[in-house]
């Protein structure tokens, strides 16, 4: 346990150092000419997540989940103790793997803990409004999956993998889908309550 805590502390310290270096480098660096020529798309604040926020926090967090919360808290530079007391089960009974858990970091960003990925909404908002996702991650025993946090202004998500439509389950501000691990290409379209749409493509072949 001591080693685990030391490693977490070291990782958090290293993360802070690297982020500091990265920030300093970012502010002072001269980016490549090509990169500078691309007009920046401003990120937008992530919208509310009412259903997720109203779920009860867990009195007892499963050991594996608690360990992942600790790791994600260190990565996200948030208070691990507060995070561990703020864990919610947002999706259960998802078939191939364990449930999906969430907590909010000390800056109010939703963080997700699941079998494949640990991730938080970024501090500066997202460039694709109201959604933050992970896709892929299957293996010989498990299908790949699409897991997304979405805000209340998202009306629907349509996922296509290798040309085939894949049903997406949306509940408690978490979207979920499964598809074959050997898939090559995915495309999903987010439809907002105002009728606008955004489409994202991902090369799953590696």
């Amino acid at each position, binding site marked *: 346990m001591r080693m685990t805590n030391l490693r977490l502390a070291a990782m958090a310290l290293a993360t802070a150092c*690297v982020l500091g270096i990265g920030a300093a480098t970012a502010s002072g660096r001269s980016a490549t000419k090509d990169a500078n020529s691309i007009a920046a798309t401003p990120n937008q604040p992530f919208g509310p997540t009412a259903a997720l926020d109203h779920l009860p926090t867990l009195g007892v967090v499963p050991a594996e989940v608690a360990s992942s919360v600790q790791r994600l808290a260190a990565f996200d530079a948030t208070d691990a103790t507060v995070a561990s007391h703020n864990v919610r089960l947002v999706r259960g009974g998802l078939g191939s793997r364990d449930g999906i858990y969430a907590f909010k970091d000390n800056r109010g960003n939703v963080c997700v803990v699941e079998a494949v990925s640990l*991730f938080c909404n970024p501090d500066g908002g997202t460039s694709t409004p109201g959604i933050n996702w992970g*896709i*892929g*991650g299957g*293996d010989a025993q498990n299908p790949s999956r699409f897991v997304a946090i979405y805000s209340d202004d998202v009306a629907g998500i349509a996922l296509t993998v290798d040309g085939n439509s894949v049903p997406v389950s949306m509940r408690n501000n978490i979207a979920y889908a499964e598809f074959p691990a050997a898939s090559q290409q995915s495309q999903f379209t987010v439809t907002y309550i105002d009728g606008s749409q955004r489409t994202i493509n*991902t090369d799953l072949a590696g």
Partner: protein
Amino acid sequence: MLHLSRRSAVALCVVIVLAGVFTGAALAWSQYYVQNATYWANDGNRSGYNSNLAGNALSFTNSWGGSPQMCSDYVDTNGQSLNSPVCHPYGWIDNRNVSYGAAHCWADSGNQYPLYVNYCYTNN
């Protein structure tokens, strides 16, 4: 009751300390295998090889806009993927484990914008 001479006790302590150091070194390995880099589509790198890899942390930003994604998997000594890639548009930790291999991070081939990689990090 075991009685040790002063010299024996010192030798025993040295052995215990060295065993602890080497055991700890074998159990706890980590590597930042990318730091402070601009990645265009398909740019990537992999870590050194080790046993019981227990995570691959990718920290990056879409500094030039758009929704570029970073992907992660683990590879064997032939460079073959041990599991399907996972891709995200913002920083994350690949929560999967492999018994032996190297961690791998790269910018998705479909990215239309570069991204700034703070680091890719793995440990066991």
